[in-house]
Every structure is written in structure tokens, then in C-alpha cells.
């Protein structure tokens, strides 16, 4: 007998596994599906009472593609079309509230929506008309925008709940493939329905969390398990702040005889699709101005330190009910911060600042309720005077907004909720927002009029000083001078304080056009340089806060000549202390004649601190006081297109299969029972040649 011995079978197994590993699969799936890689989904967010955003079913939603041509064309997917459900492809001009609500109401026939951003509409703001109305300043008759509707163009689309997936595609080859597939297979010819097979799309964006934050936190099982499986993640980010004269960071609570002026700006913004946020006018203009002001103040405050300290605070998470600022106020109230609310003298916040041509005005907003107190009113008037005098010699002026007008949505409102502190919010709007694209994807570089001549290379564009940059520089100069005076600085020094237009234009370019440029690479740490490569800075909280931290460090800190290992452990040196400063090793520029970067150690007072809403510390997930926003976790995000066959063909296949099976069972049974008749000469005589 032929034996297969153990060794040769091992050899065969080895060959099989090696082949399996090396052979590339040319499977049938490649003939069927086209995967779409460049997609951005709309995700589900939850707060104390609602869930908003979009959800797909757990095995994806499939629908026949229909490219919407106009609002009237909506009839086809919603009522007339013979092959529901439909996957509606919209161009950005059709992405309006009325169309989305009509589809939401007919959601049994709509499997999903895909948005292709193309031209900007004239105005579009998916945010609410009264942003953050429940978590701002607590005032009875002026709350909920009774007097001034801040965002009148807001349609609230970002805060609606859809039970089908909504995806956004970038306009590129994939969109062309989809449209080609639609034109080949799905077009309606002379009123009759299109023929099978039809072009269809499947979207996967299944979200795990439901109902509200309290439910999903309960389901996340935090209290009962040492390694909880999170169903949703609290929204939040990182605050970046820096004192001009830093304190010992371990000494929390009230500081005797210390008076601090807070200069604040917000960092974040959102769009309907969370990953598409840009916020050029909404947030970037504000924090870039503050960064430039911080740089302008550096020299003057080192030569002649003012009596009061100045805190530059950049808050993250302000879009979602003031996460960053409520965290700082909470820390101040509970002695978890280096100063407390008694140390705060006044607040100057920079809101949306898009300046137009020269000679335009910026408006100063104050809170009428706290100004009923005379001391507060005097301080506010003093601050307003400082601001007015700071615009001497500049091409714009500050104008006070109406006295009885409430404060626009701003981080300052959270401070006022805790204590009546004098303060001013700077903005480019007198009453309602001027921003036509507030918290939308279209609030981008073009909206801020950032235009570069066409023949410039990217590095030349980085250096080119745009008109927008020039006007923001003037604002930054005025802000810096006002802050210096407000902090009690010497008046003779004031005219030496000037913001640098080159810094401003480089920051605008980096945040709004291209993050991966040579200057941003130079200010970042070596281990963070890939953060710039992967994301556009404004869309990713990590990238944005790291960039602001390192920019602030480079603009206000001091370059030291510590080595890299000393920079990691500066406490061993006599004059350095990590309690007061933080030491960052940055990449530095590449000098023109070499390829090696000149890295160095920056000693800076900048801190980047995690900012999550206090509601999660307190475990109060239905809090009316703090933000309770969370983002749902999800399985995976996938989109693909393919052809679908008609139901008739599928049923016919099944029918043929069942028929074949039954026939073969019957025939085989019949033949096997009658085998002895059919195959007569079964047994030969024993002496045959077997």
C-alpha cells in the first residue's frame, strides 16, 4: 500500500500555506463593487435630551442612485420612482433645509443622501438661529434671542436627526464614476422606468449610541467594569493658555494681590459634517488676531512688565455649549486653577473679525445686565476707552454696540454666569452676525477673501501678505495696545507695540489653505510633524490645539540653548523649572545652504490642558448647567457602489435552484432503488480479472 508519510504531508502543507500567502486574490468581489474612499459621514451626537445627526442600519443602507437636478425632481425618489428606496445624490446648491426635511419625512423611500460640494450657495448656515442659548449668560428677558437673533440665516440642519446616512464626497474621480454609472443605467427614458440592472450605492455608518447622553453613558458600563467598552465619547478638546508672568503650576486657588486681564478667543468651529469644519471667519480670524497680539506684546511686557498679569486663553469646544470656557470657570471656582475668579480683573474676547475695506468698524459688545452695577460699568467704560485710544493711527475704529443689546454668544458668557466681571467682546457685527456661512463648510479661505496671485509657488504664497492679513494685523495691534494699557502698562511704550503682518499672513495661510508648510513644520516638535501631514488643521482637534500651543510658544517664549536631553529634563539645571515653564523641543527652520534642521528648545509659559465638560466629572449627564455633548462610537464607515439585479431574476434563480434540487433528489432516489434492474451485470463471476 502506498503510505503518505508524515514528512511529505508537512511539506505539502507548507507549500499550500506559502502559496496562500503570496497569491493575490483576483476575486469576484472586484467585478462587483467599487469602493469609495474619500467620504465624510454625518455622525450622531447626543446631549442631555436629544440625539442629532444621522444613522444607518447595522448592515448598511442600499438604495438606487438618483442624481437630483432640482427641487421639483425630488418627486421621483419620493413618490414617482418605481424602484425605492433611493440614494439621493445632491450638489451643494440643493443641500437646503427644505429638501432635507422633505426627504426626512419620506424616509421609507430614501435610503441615504450623498452631498457633493461644488459651488458655494449665496448663504448657508446649518447652525441654530440662537447659538448656545441654554448655556450662556443666565438672563430672563434677554435669553433665547428675544431681542437680537444672532444667526438669522441659521436653518438648524446640523441639529436635526435623520434616520438615514448622509455622506459627503469630495468632488473628484469617485463622483465622476458615480455619475457615469447613473447615466449609464439609471436614466429615465421617455417617462418609463429604467431597466434593471440598476446602479446602487450602499452606505455604512452605524452608530452605537441612542437616545441621549445619560443612556449611552449608562450603557458604557463605566461603573461596573475596569475596562469599559465606551459607546459614546464626550466631546471636548484642549484649551491652550499662557500667562505673561507665569505662576507655579502646582499652586492652585486664589493668589493674593494678583489681578489678571484675560484675553480670550475660541479655537473650534463645526460644519454639518463634523470633519469638514473650517471656521475661517467664525474662529480662525479671532484666534489668529489674538496670537498676533500675543507676539506683539512680548517685547513690551518683558522690558516694562505691566502691573497686572495678562492671560491669553484659547478655548476649544465652544461650539458645543462652551466646553472649554466652562471647564476653565469650573476649575477657577473649585480651586483647580492657578488663579480664581477673584483674581480676574477684566476680560477682552475676540469674536468674529472679518474686516472689509479700510475705514470699516469693529464693534464692542458688552453685557447690559452686569453693567447695571456701577463698579462694573466704570471698568467697562475704562476698557472701552483703552480700546478707542489704541486705534490711533490705524485704519479702523471701534464702535460700541447698542447699550441695551445683550452679549453675543461668546466664552465671556460663561464667566458672567459665574461672576459679574467687566468685559468686552470684539466682533465685526453690530447686531446679527454678518457671517453668511456661520458654522458651515463654506466658511473657508475664499470667504475671508484670501486671494493669492496665481503664479506663486506654495512657499511664496506662504510669505505673501494678503489684504486680509493687513487688516487683521491692524486689529491685532489695537488689541495688543489695549491689553497693555488695561494691564496698567506704561503709556510711553504703547506706540512700540505693533503686530507683525508676516506672522499674520503665514498663520492665515497655514490654517486656511495648507497646513503642511515650512513655517508650521519649523515651529512643531519632531514627533508631531506627521500631525500636519494627515489632517487639515482646522478639522482635527489634536492638530489644531498642538499648532496653537506651539505657535504661541514660539511667538511668546524664549529660545534657549539647552540640548535636546536637557530640554526633556530641565529641572536638573539650576535656573529652569517645569513648575513655572514648559520646555518644548521644536524642529526649527532649515537654513538655505544645508538640509539639517536647526532644532532648539523653547522655554515658554504656554500650557495645553485637556478640556472636557465638568458634567462628566460630576457624573451629571442631564446637566442644564454644563455641556453634555457626546459623540457616538461607530463600527466602521464605508461606502461602495455596484449594480443590483431585479427581484424577478433573483426569484427565478432561487426557483430554478429549488427545482434542480428536487428533481435531482427524485431522480436519484428512483435510480438508486431500481439500480439492480437498470445496471444488470453488476456482479461478474468470481474468476473474472479483478
Amino acid at each position, binding site marked *: 500500500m502506498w503510505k503518505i508519510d508524515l514528512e511529505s504531508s508537512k511539506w505539502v502543507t507548507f*507549500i499550500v500555506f506559502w502559496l496562500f500567502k503570496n497569491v493575490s486574490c483576483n476575486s469576484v468581489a472586484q467585478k462587483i463593487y467599487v469602493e469609495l474612499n474619500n467620504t465624510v459621514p454625518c455622525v450622531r451626537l447626543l446631549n442631555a435630551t436629544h440625539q442629532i445627526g444621522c444613522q444607518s442600519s447595522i448592515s448598511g443602507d442600499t438604495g438606487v442612485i438618483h442624481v437630483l437636478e432640482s427641487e421639483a425632481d425630488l418627486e421621483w425618489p419620493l413618490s414617482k420612482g418605481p424602484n425605492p428606496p433611493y440614494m439621493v445624490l445632491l450638489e451643494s446648491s440643493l443641500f437646503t433645509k427644505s429638501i432635507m426635511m422633505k426627504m426626512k419625512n419620506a424616509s421609507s423611500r430614501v435610503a441615504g443622501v450623498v452631498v457633493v460640494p461644488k459651488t458655494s450657495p449665496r448663504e448657508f448656515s446649518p447652525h441654530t438661529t440662537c447659538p448656545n442659548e441654554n448655556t450662556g449668560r443666565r438672563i430672563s428677558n434677554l435669553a433665547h434671542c428675544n431681542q437680537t437673533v444672532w444667526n438669522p440665516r441659521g436653518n438648524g440642519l446640523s441639529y436635526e436627526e435623520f434616520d438615514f446616512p448622509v455622506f459627503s464626497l469630495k468632488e473628484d474621480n469617485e463622483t465622476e464614476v458615480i455619475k457615469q454609472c447613473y447615466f449609464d443605467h439609471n436614466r429615465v427614458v421617455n417617462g418609463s422606468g429604467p431597466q434593471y440592472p440598476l446602479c446602487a450605492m450602499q452606505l455604512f455608518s452605524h452608530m452605537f449610541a441612542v437616545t441621549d447622553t445619560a443612556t449611552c453613558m449608562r450603557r458604557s458600563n463605566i461603573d461596573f467594569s475596569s475596562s469599559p467598552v465606551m459607546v459614546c465619547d464626550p466631546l471636548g478638546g484642549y484649551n491652550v493658555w499662557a500667562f505673561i508672568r507665569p505662576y507655579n503650576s502646582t499652586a492652585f486657588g486664589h493668589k493674593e494681590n494678583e489681578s489678571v486681564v484675560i484675553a480670550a478667543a475660541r479655537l473650534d468651529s463645526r460644519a454639518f459634517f463634523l470633519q469638514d469644519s473650517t471656521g475661517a471667519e467664525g474662529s480662525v480670524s479671532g484666534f489668529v488676531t489674538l496670537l498676533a497680539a500675543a507676539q506683539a506684546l512680548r517685547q513690551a511686557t518683558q522690558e516694562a512688565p505691566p502691573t497686572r498679569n495678562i492671560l491669553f486663553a484659547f478655548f476649544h469646544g465652544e461650539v458645543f455649549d462652551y466646553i472649554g470656557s466652562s471647564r476653565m470657570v469650573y476649575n477657577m471656582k473649585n480651586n483647580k486653577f492657578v488663579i480664581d475668579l477673584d483674581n480676574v480683573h477684566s476680560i477682552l474676547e475676540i469674536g468674529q473679525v472679518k474686516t472689509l475695506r479700510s475705514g470699516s468698524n469693529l464693534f464692542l459688545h458688552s453685557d447690559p445686565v452686569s453693567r447695571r452695577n456701577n463698579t462694573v460699568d466704570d471698568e467697562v467704560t475704562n476698557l472701552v476707552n483703552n480700546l478707542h485710544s489704541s486705534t490711533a493711527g490705524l485704519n479702523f475704529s471701534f464702535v460700541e454696540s447698542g447699550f441695551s443689546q445683550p452679549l453675543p454668544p461668546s466664552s465671556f458668557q460663561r464667566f458672567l454666569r459665574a461672576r459679574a466681571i467687566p468685559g468686552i467682546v470684539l466682533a465685526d457685527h453690530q447686531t446679527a452676525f454678518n457671517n453668511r456661512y456661520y458654522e458651515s463648510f463654506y466658511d473657508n479661505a475664499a470667504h475671508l477673501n484670501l486671494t493669492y496671485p496665481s503664479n506663486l509657488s506654495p512657499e511664496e504664497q506662504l510669505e505673501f501678505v494678503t489684504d486680509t492679513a493687513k487688516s487683521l494685523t491692524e486689529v491685532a495691534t489695537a488689541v495688543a495696545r489695549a491689553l497693555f494699557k488695561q494691564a496698567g502698562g506704561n503709556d510711553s511704550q504703547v506706540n512700540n507695540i505693533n503686530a507683525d503682518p508676516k506672522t499674520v499672513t503665514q498663520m492665515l495661510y497655514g490654517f486656511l489653505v495648507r497646513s503642511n508648510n515650512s513655517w508650521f513644520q519649523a515651529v512643531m516638535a519632531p514627533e508631531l510633524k506627521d500631525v500636519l501631514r494627515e489632517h487639515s488643521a482646522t478639522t482635527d482637534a489634536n492638530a489644531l490645539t498642538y499648532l496653537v500651543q506651539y505657535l504661541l510658544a514660539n511667538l511668546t517664549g524664549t529660545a534657549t540653548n539647552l540640548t535636546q536631553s536637557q530640554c526633556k529634563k530641565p529641572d536638573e539645571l539650576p535656573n529652569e523649572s517645569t513648575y513655572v515653564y514648559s520646555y518644548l523641543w521644536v524642529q526649527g527652520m532649515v537654513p538655505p545652504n544645508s538640509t539639517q534642521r536647526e532644532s532648539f528648545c523653547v522655554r515658554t509659559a504656554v500650557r495645553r490642558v485637556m478640556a472636557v465638560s465638568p458634567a462628566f466629572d460630576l457624573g451629571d449627564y442631564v446637566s442644564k448647567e454644563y455641556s453634555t455633548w457626546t459623540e457616538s462610537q461607530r463600527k466602521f464607515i464605508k461606502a461602495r457602489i455596484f449594480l443590483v439585479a431585479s427581484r424577478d431574476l433573483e426569484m427565478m434563480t432561487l*426557483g430554478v435552484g429549488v427545482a434542480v434540487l428536487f428533481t435531482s433528489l427524485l431522480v436519484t432516489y428512483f435510480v438508486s432503488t431500481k439500480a439492480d434492474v437498470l445496471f444488470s451485470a453488476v456482479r461478474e463471476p468470481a474468476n473474472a480479472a479483478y
Partner: protein
Amino acid sequence: MTAAVFFGCAFIAFGPAFSLFIFTIAKDPLRVIILIAGAFFWLVSLLLSSLVWFIATKATNAQDLTLQKDLLIFGCVFSVILQEVFRFAYYRLLRKANEGLAAISEEDGPPLSVREMAYVAGLGFGIMSGAFSMINTLSDSLGPGTVGMFGDSQYYFITSALMTLALTLLHTFWGVVFFEGCERRRWWVIAVVLCLHLMVFSLSLLNPLYVGSILPVYAIMLLMAVWAFFSSGGSLHNITLLWMCRKSNTETSS
């Protein structure tokens, strides 16, 4: 495409093989062993021929599509030849095994006749060949999409299943005919089986012109069915006997 297509194609491709298995093979453990060993022999032949093809493709330029297609055809021809070689090898193995089984069995004479072994061996080859052709396609038929995005025909799944069905039955019939030809020392039978196998392979190259491939293959299958019927002891007389529902006199010997 969906569960309907999955089950439909699975039933088409494996229905006859399944019914043959449960009615004729499952009750006798010896037949099951011979079936599985036959499947294994087919698998080894495929492995060796695919090794040859794999080395050939890796040694040549992967971008040259006509060369790759030619290499594929060469590989398949080589695989067909190797399958028949292994069928012959399996025949020799079973002949040797039969003597040993006859020695240890309790009955007089061998427990399985060569005809039965031929049928089971052929079915083993057929089942494994069908499984290899169809399982990959079946798993993709479960998803929501169907073939056609890149210009292929939308009847891909059904025609694959029909081809698999034909191939399974063809292997069974070839097994019967082949073993009978080896028994009777009729070597021309082997040559004819090999030629028919090559013809079926070359007809499958005509896909997606399904009319040109499926119909001739089914014609060949019917021809082989008739030949196998006659070579395994059937005759027209038996059919007429059956038709008249009368048992023949030779039944007493079983």
C-alpha cells in the same frame, strides 16, 4: 446578490451532487472513504498544476496581459492533463486496495466492485472540482450587488452554477468510463476522456458568450451520461424492463 441568489446557485451547483451523496454514498462508510480520497487526489493534482502556473506567472512580466492569459490557458491545459493522470493513479491505487480489502472482509470477494469504485471516485473528483469552482463565487453572491459594473454579464452567477453542475456530473461519468476502459485494457477510452475534458475546458473559454459554452457542455454531458450508463452495465433492455415495472431474472443473484 442576496440570499435568494445564494441559495438558488448553491442548489443548482450542488443539488445533484448532494442527492447522489445522500442516496448512494452516505450509507456505506467504505464509499465515503473512497469519495474523500478521490476528492483529495483531485486536490493534489490541482495543487501541483497551480504550482507550475504560479511559478510561470511570477517568472514573467505581470503587466503583459496577453502573456498572462496565454499562461493561464497553458496552466489549465496542464491541469486537465494532470487531473487525468491522477485519475489513472487513483485507479491503480484502488485496484491494489481492493485486493487488501477483499482479504479482510467478511464476505466472499471484494466488498466493492470496480464499477462502484469508479462511480464513487468520479463523484469525488466532481464534488471537489465543483466546490473549488463555485464556493468563492457563492460567497460573493451573498452581498447586495451583482456582476456587471465593469461590463460583465449580469447572469454570471447562474451560469457559473450551471457550469459547475455540468462539470460535477461530467467528472462522475468520466470516472465510470475511465475505470471501465482501464479494466478492459481499452486505452483509447483514456484518450477520448482526456480529449473531451480538454474540449469542455476550451468551451469554457468562450464565456461570456454563454450560449456558446453552456449548451455544448450540456450536450457533451448528456452524451457522457449515455456512454456511462451503457458502460456500467445498463442497456435498452433494462430500461424497457423498468418501464414495464417487471423485475429481471438476474436480480436473484444480488
